[in-house]
C-alpha cells in the first residue's frame, strides 16, 4: 500500500470528486429515463 502511494500520488480528493460527477450523471439520467417511461 505504501509502496503504491509512492508511485501514484495521493489523489483521493480527485477520486471523490469524479465520483460525485459520475453519480450526478447517473442520477440525472435515470430521472430523465423515468420521466420518459412514465409519459406516453
Amino acid at each position, binding site marked *: 500500500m505504501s509502496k503504491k502511494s509512492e508511485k501514484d500520488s495521493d*489523489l483521493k*480528493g480527485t477520486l471523490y*470528486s*469524479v465520483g460525485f460527477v459520475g453519480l450526478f*450523471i447517473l442520477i*440525472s439520467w435515470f430521472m430523465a429515463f423515468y420521466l*420518459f417511461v412514465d409519459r406516453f
Partner: protein
Amino acid sequence: MTTIKEKAKDLIKVDRRDSKLALAHIYVAFIALFIGGLCGLLQVLVRSGKFTLPWGIGYYQILTIHGVLLGLILTTYFILGFQIAAMSRTSGTFTNKQRLIGWIGFWVMTAGTVAASIMVLLNEASVLYTFYAPLQAHWIFYVGMALVVVGSWITGIAQIMKYVEWRKVNPGQPSPLLSFMVIVNMAMWLICSLGVAVEVVFQLIPWSLGWVDKVDVLLSRTLFWYFGHPLVYFWLLPAYMVWYVIIPKIIGGKIFSDALARLSFMLFLLFSIPVGFHHQLTEPGIDSFWKFLQVILTMMVVIPSLLTAFSMFASFELRGRQLGGKGLYGWFKKLPWKDARFTVPFIGMAAFIPAGAGGIINASYQMNQLIHNTIWVTGHFHLTLATTVVLTFFGAAYWLIPHLTGRVLTKQMNKLAIIQAIIWSVGMTIMSGAMHIVGLMGAPRRSDFSTYGGAQQATEWIPYQVAQAVGGTILFVGIILVLYIVANLLWFAPKGETEFPIGEVSEHAEKTPMWLENWKIWLTICIALILFAYTVPIIDIIQNAPPGSKGYKLW
C-alpha cells in the same frame, strides 16, 4: 523552483505583428458579443410576454442575429485569434507568408460576416443560424456564410503551415502541446466544415439564385449536422486547451499528463464528427439502425471528457497538496481563488458537469423525444457554450489581451472579472435552470411569445419565461461588465508585461509516445469512422429522395 531559463521562457512574447492579427480577430469577437448579447436580452424580454419589439423588428430576425453572431462569429473569431497567438507563442513567430495568409483569411471571413449581417438586417434572411431549407434566405446570406467558412480555412492553413514548419525543424520530437491541440482542432474543423460548405455551395446557393428549383431537404439537414456537432467541439476544444495547458501554470502546478492530454484530443478528433444523427433522432427518412449506431459513437465522445475531468481535478489536487492542503478537500481551499485567470474558467468547468449530464440525456436515442426542440436544448447549450466555453474564453482574454497589447490586468479589473463571473453564474443558473425545467414541461425553443390559444399548459410556462427574462437581464449586465474589462485591457490599462502562461509537464510524467502524433494513423481512423457512419445512410437518403422542395419565405 523556477530556474533562470524557465523565467526567460515565461516572458516569451508573441511577436507584435502576430499580436495584431490575433487582436483583429478578438475585436470582431467582442463586437459580436455586444450585438448578439443585446439581441439575447431582447429575446428573453419578448418571451416573458411583457415586452414587444419596436419599429416592426421581427422576433426571428433578432433570434437569427443572436445565433449567428454568438454561435458562429464570436466563437470562430475568438478561437482563431487565440489559436494564432498560441501557435506564435509555442511554435514561433509566423513567417511573413503565413501571416499574410492569416490576414487574407481574416478579411474573407469579415467580408462574409458583413454580407450575411446586412441580409439579416434587411429581413431577407430570418432563417436562424441553422438556415434549414426549404425556408429560403437571400443568396447573399448563403454566400456570406460560405465566405466565413472559407476564410476560417485560409486562417487555419496558416496555422497548419506553422506546425509543419516546426515539425521539420525538430524531427523526431513531439510538438509543443498547445500547438498540437490547435492543429487537432483545426483538422477537425476542416473535415467537418466540408459538410456545411457542400450544403451551402452545391445546394443552397444555386437554389436561392434560382438556378435550380428544388432542394433535397433531408440531405441538406444531414450535411448541416455532419458539421453541426463537431462545431460544438470546435468551441469546446480551445476551452480544453486553456484547461490543460494554461490553468496548471496559473495555479503554479504542472500538467498532469502530456500523453493523456494528447490522447483525449485525438479521441475528440475521431468521435466528434460521425455523430450528427443524434441531432436528427426524431426525423423521418433516416433508418433507426444508423441513428442508433451514431448514438453509440456519441457516447464514445464522452470518454475524452471523462479523462479531462480527472486530469483537471488531479492537477488541482496535486498543486493544493503541494501548498500544504491536508485531508480530503484541504487542497481545494489552497487554489488561487482571487486570480480571475483561474476562477473564471473554473466556474466554466463546474458548469460542464450539469451540461455534460444533460448532453448524455439528449443523445440517449428515444429519450431525445423528451427534449427535442424544447427550450431544454437552449438551456443545455447555454451551459456548454454560453457558460463553460465563454467563461473560459473570458478568463483567457484577461491575460491574452494584455499580453498582446503590452498592458497589465490591474487589481481592480481582476476583482471586477471575478464579480463578472459570479453575476454570470447567477444569471445563467436562473435562465438555464428555468429553460431546463420548462423544456421538460414542453415549452418549445426558438418561438415567439405565445399563449397558444390560452392552453392550460402554456399558461403554466409563463412564470418560467419570466424567470428566463430575469436571468437573461442579469447575463446582459455580465456582458456589459466583460466589455468594460476588455475595453480597459485594449486601450486604457497601464502598460507593462503580461505573461502568456504555458504549463509544463510534471517531471514525474513519462515521455510522450510519438504514435500520438502520427497523423497518418489518426486521420485514417477518423475518415474511416465517418465513412462507416455516413456512407450507407447518405446513399439511402439520395437514392430514396422524395420530390424536392421549392423555396419559401414565410417571415
